[in-house]
């Protein structure tokens, strides 16, 4: 579902990713870990085509993103659910409208919009907050709205860039467990994080990125500060 082949990305001579090779299968759940500045966010941005690699190829759902025309980028992003550390909710819109926005922009019938939004909100247990505004919600609730928005269009891939970065440990675990439940329904979930607690609790595939290179890739792994090289 996600494949990177010899991907290098550098910003004016400063390398952010160096010769990265990676494959994540359909329905897989994986963590991308590493210290700040390791290149996690850069890798994520390559996947939703916010950035393009300096060299190498990035494939998502079989599509080579290097060859994707600018006009086709929105089509790619509709097939990806993206979750951000700062939630990126529309402050002047209610929870319902935040989740419904993309469906309406795609011209989905209002009856269908209501049905799909209710369903997404029920997955994240926020049906009762449909009429609230983002600033009336806690951080955890705001992130759950972000997740509802990401899954409302039924994407096969869910990318989460530091989704728990602004949350307390208990809420963080709650959010990641929610993402794990979504993965159980067949969605590929790829989470970048530097939260050792959630990675070590869930014991799923862990890809360790350091200085722009993958230094370890372990199934049922843990997040160690100095991992044994096991690519």
């Amino acid at each position, binding site marked *: 579902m996600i494949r990177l082949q010899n991907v290098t990305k550098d910003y004016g001579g400063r390398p952010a990713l160096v010769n990265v090779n990676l494959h994540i299968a359909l329905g897989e759940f994986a963590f991308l870990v590493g210290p700040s500045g390791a290149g996690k966010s850069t890798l994520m941005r390559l996947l*939703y085509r*916010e950035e393009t690699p300096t060299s190498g190829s990035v494939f998502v759902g079989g599509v080579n993103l290097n060859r994707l025309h*600018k*006009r086709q*980028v*929105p*089509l*790619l*992003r*509709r*097939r*990806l659910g*993206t979750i*951000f550390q700062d939630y*990126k*909710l*529309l402050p002047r819109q209610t929870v319902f409208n935040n989740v419904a*926005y*993309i469906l*309406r*922009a*795609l*011209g*989905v*019938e209002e009856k269908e919009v209501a049905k799909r939004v209710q369903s997404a909100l029920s997955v994240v247990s926020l049906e009762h907050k449909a009429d609230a505004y983002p600033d009336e919600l806690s951080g955890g609730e705001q992130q759950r709205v972000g997740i509802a*928005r990401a899954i409302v269009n039924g994407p096969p891939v869910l990318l989460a860039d530091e989704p728990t970065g602004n949350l307390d440990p208990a809420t963080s675990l709650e959010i990641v467990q929610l993402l794990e439940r979504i993965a159980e329904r067949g969605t590929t979930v790829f989470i970048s994080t530097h939260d050792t607690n959630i990675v070590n609790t869930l014991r799923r595939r862990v890809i360790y990125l350091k200085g722009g290179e993958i230094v370890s890739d372990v199934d049922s792994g843990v997040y160690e500060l100095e991992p044994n090289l096991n690519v």
Partner: protein
Amino acid sequence: MRHLRTFFRVIIETGLGIKRSGWSNWLVVSILAIALTIFGGILQVTMTMKNVVAAFGSQLEVSAYLKDGYQPKRVAREISQIPEVQLVEIVTKDVAWDEMKSTFKVASLANPLPNTLHIRASSPEAVEAVAAKVKLLSAVENIRYPLNVARKINEFRHFIEIAGFAITAALSAATLTVIGNTIHLLIESRQREIEILSLMGVSPFYIKGPFVLQGAAYGAGSAAVAILVLVGVHIYLDPYLTDQLVSLAPFLPRNIEYGMWQTFGVMLGLGVLVGAGGSAWTSGKYIKI
């Protein structure tokens, strides 16, 4: 159906954008309305002049004003010998003076009017030739004929056109700047929202469309205001203007065509073009998707 619903949503977003713009809506519409009123006014004046000239062009008459001491009948006989002349009508100075006195209040003074001959040419092409031959006669003091007047009006029209379009171009440039700034401010205030929409995979049409339509709405609104102003001017000034024109040029037909609908169409088109064009340019420059 899906595209129709998307378009409907874009219109709703446009409405929200206009609501959010507040007072700047009035600023943009006022400036653009002033520019369009001037443009429309100039367009109407020049179109009316064109129609007047066309009406003159179809007139076959040459008026000859005789010097004192010449017998109008004898001059008329001489003129009727010219092959291109179809008819010569004599208006003696006494008849003309009586007519003038019955129309206007004039002071009791000696009759200043000359004997006049109205000469009808056999075809529009012959008018110039007849005028040239009549002017050479020693009895003729001066001549006036519609084509002669038409030429002078045309010269004046060209001047108005050039000056008017220069003013309109300057005002349109100013309007483009104001529209650009208004849309730019709106884009800045919605930058985060635009970024989110882009990351969600919302199409550029859906993101930029409302800004372009907002510009087009400014253009249409301004054109409507400018058209109302011109309609008002027409209602109050038309009868007066027609009288003035006819008194200046008696051979002018009274049913002058002012070209109102064409002018209004052009104003609306220009307004929408400037509005939509200005905001399309600004959205293209500041919204990076």
